[in-house]
């Protein structure tokens, strides 16, 4: 009984640490033309749901997303507060009512990072970047 209780506690603890670790598994990447080094969670969410088109310094923001995958789900869950299906529906509503243009979506993190590196104002996310990636990291603040 004692062993079972320990096992349950160990399992719950590992789940908790796993959830906390997942929140850290996404990094925000931006084109090097972006002057800011940090972005609030509110601004990040507003840019990715289309209600804001500019960074805090007034420069134009170009959000880009992944088509799917763990990094995409973690980013949407922790920074946008939506699941991928709701995120997609919300953008489709804007597109089919003429009120917005869907962010470009990429099938791989490498393609996303390459696009962010080449596009002024681009803002995206990935699970990791390497020293060869020509992008800058942004910190998300509350």
């Amino acid at each position, binding site marked *: 009984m004692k062993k079972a209780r320990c096992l349950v506690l160990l399992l719950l603890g590992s789940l908790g640490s796993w959830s906390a670790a997942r929140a850290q598994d996404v990094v925000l990447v931006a084109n090097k033309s972006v002057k800011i080094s940090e972005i609030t969670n*509110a601004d990040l969410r507003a840019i990715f749901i289309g209600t804001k088109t500019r960074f805090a310094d007034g420069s134009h923001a170009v959000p880009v997303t992944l088509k799917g995958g763990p990094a995409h789900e973690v980013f949407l*869950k922790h920074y946008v507060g939506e*699941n991928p299906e709701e995120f997609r529906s919300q953008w489709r*509503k804007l597109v089919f*009512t*003429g009120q917005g243009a869907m962010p470009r*979506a990429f099938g791989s993190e490498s393609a996303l990072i390459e696009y962010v590196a080449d596009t002024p104002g681009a803002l995206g996310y990935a699970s990791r970047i390497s020293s060869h990636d020509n992008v800058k990291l942004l910190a998300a603040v509350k």
Partner: protein
Amino acid sequence: MIVEGPGYDSDQPPDGSKPKDLTHRCKAVLHRKAPPIHSGQGRGGGSVPGCMYLFLFLFFLVCTCRESVCAQDLNGIVVHAYVSQGFLFSSNNNYLSMKSSDGSLQWTDAAVNISDSLADNLRVGIQLHMYQLGEFGGSNVQVDWALGDYRVNDNFGIRAGKVKTVWGLFNDSQDIDAVFLWILLPQGSYSIDHKSFYLAHIGGDVYGGLPLGKKAGTLHYVGYAGQATVDLNDGYIKQFANLGLIFTSSLGGKTYGGDLRWETPVQGLTIGSSADVQAVDGTAPTGSVHLPPTLTPSFYAQFSRRKVYLAGEYDRIPINATLTIESTVIPFVEDGRSWFAMGSYRLCKNVQVGSYYSHYVNKAADTTQPANHSKDFVVSGRYDFNPYFYAKIEGHFLHGTALGYYSDTNPNGLAPDSKMLSAKIGFTF
């Protein structure tokens, strides 16, 4: 309420409402129920519409090219499209001009849009749309919207052209099947057979978001003014035709209004209100219709967070119109009040379920009569095969006959209650 034209059987309807005199026969042309179309005017005739071939082609495309079917970006030009095919079966009565008591497939929608960002803050685009809903719509393609959008900054932007009208939670998006769990939106607020008049206007919008501070959220606004027209394929035109008012040019009138929605500090909670003012005038060889500027308010709230969606809305549509047929002047007064409450839950990545209750009454008449109310309890389910292809199923438990019924498809009158089963499949990218 049913508009009855010449030749309608005036025997006591089975739902217990009073027999209608000549004045009552011509009521409600401008709202909700249409008088039936003479059988010779019907479209579709029960055969599968030609657009089914377009749907089948697109279905084949998505099945064979799943990974590559996405928005096609041709050097900045982006193309999106959707197609849906529906089925409706009803236990009593025939609904929305379909022979739904036998099961009907006369329910198809398709649209394609093309847009381009000419600059960081300037976007242009056009969307073409066709639909077949029973005897409404048709094979002709219409411009759903066509606009230029100049966003000065996040607080202020301008759209001009043919623009979808923002009113209530769903007016501008009501015909985009792909974004909803529901097959039919609450009909008291979003009548599918009369949507063309409310759906868009030709004119201009101003819009933007006003931050209220970290702890007070954001206020989003839209203001618009322009001209709204009633499409010649719409249910309203069919209603007039049955009364002898054959319109060869669209009816229309000035419209203006606005929407304010507060994105509250509680993430996912939005509260808002809309107001729309519309006038209608139209002249036919044998008469005319006049609706003075009429204010239509809406109040709503929605909560959307991860797997849960909740929403409610209250609308009022008061009508005080005048029909002139030959030398007869017929006043029409209706006070439509509707509300709904809905909720949905995403069970897993591919499955979403939900339910809503919709309530409509015409306060200008005896609301205890089935012809003057419509109460609908709905349960729905949606399955997404992949991001592009989905299927839906929906059940309706409908009490009252105020909405969606036409006497030419119900020649024996109406039963007060009906159960309906609807299904849809759709494709979008």
